[in-house]
């Protein structure tokens, strides 16, 4: 439930709790009123849901998680198991 997607803050409005946010090249004004005052700055990543920022993304946590998960795959040589993109031989 609740589709929410990460975006990066481009700029923050002066008076209102609004931030201009970039999501893969698409920009929108996002309300940051649900976050603590001054919690975010341009360059920060936030999670956007129905035009509001739900939370500031913790870069360190994301990094640690990915490092741990990557290590899990490496010992099993999992990369070799990656399937897909295998076209069948041309049918004669």
């Amino acid at each position, binding site marked *: *439930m*609740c*589709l*929410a*997607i*990460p975006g*990066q803050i481009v700029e923050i409005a002066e008076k209102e709790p609004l931030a201009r946010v970039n*999501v*893969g090249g698409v920009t929108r004004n996002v*309300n940051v*009123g*649900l*976050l*603590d005052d001054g919690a975010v700055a341009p360059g920060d*990543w936030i*999670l956007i*849901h*129905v*035009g*509001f920022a*739900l*939370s500031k*993304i*913790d*870069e360190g*946590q*994301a990094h640690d*998680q*990915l490092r741990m*998960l*990557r290590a*899990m*795959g*490496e010992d*099993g040589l*999992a*990369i070799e*198991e*990656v399937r*897909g993109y295998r076209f069948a031989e041309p049918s004669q």
Partner: protein
Amino acid sequence: MKYVDEFRDAGIISGVAREIARTAKPSRLYRIMEVCGGHTHSIYRHGLRDVLPANIELVHGPGCPVCVLPTGRVDDGLAIAARENVILTCFGDMMRVPGTKGTPLELKARGADIRMVYSPLDALRIAASNPEKHVCFFAIGFETTAPSTALTILRAQELGVNNFSVFCNHVTIVPAMRAILDSPDMRIDGFVGPGHVSSITGCRPYEFIARDYGKPVVVSGFEPLDILESILLILRQLDAGEARVENQYKRIVPWEGNPPALMALARVFELRPYFEWRGLGFISQSALSIKPDFAGFDAEKLFNVPGVRVTDPRGAQCGEVLKGVLKPPQCKLFGTECNPEHPVGALMVSSEGACAAYYRYAMHASAVEA
């Protein structure tokens, strides 16, 4: 896209999938409920079933706002749209949900002014630019969405916009999870817990599930790697004979939640004594209503909605599917009377709904014609 692509990395996913296969004991069946419709959607969208061992059964949970909204509430909302001089605004998800007299899209085709918005603030903007009309926002969603509605109401008050109201259907997930746990046919070993709800509520509200029911809950993100890691963490708890609340989604979810958002909720909303859920029936303290201080923005008070109770169409087994007791194809209407183009129940409407997801996914072989 940062924070998206890394969590869909095929190599890492294969590694975690192997780890799951190693951890899952072939001798037993694991029944894991993914609470959110967003999880259900992601599981089908990314083909995660294909990388999981067959003895892990995923049961779809109730966390899909349009799925749990009973037909009576849809009718109430559409009764507002049928009034003179009213613009009803709602999220795209609502547009195809059937009420007794049709879906919002059908009513719109017949001339009602129903508009889709991306944000409740967009609805407020429509109100500000149409002062001669009344603009009502059909609010749905769990704790994730409710703070946005709360802030919009506060903003409307601040700006003095008095032609704006909210038809509040916000619900809370924990009572629904409790209802499922108390259901006599409950047979779930652990929960992939709501990620975005928890960004607001934090992880504490689930502690009773671990403590009182002995089931692991792992608060989970929505990308393929998040869901797989959460499943792995549940398996590890089960194998160790533990039941704890764990936070897999630390990059988003603080353990204590989001205090300013919780404050906004407390300012604007109060708990309803009870609320009807589709399929689950009346659940006490499971939904929010607008506080009397903001009565001027409460569509239910302004419009005196009919408040009818409508029984689900005959044969529809949405409740059993929502509780995870039946799988979608076990519903008598699945794929015949009920299909994505002509949904009977809301689970067939939303792409997060278990039936719609299952319909698309499971129809590999049989070509069911609409």
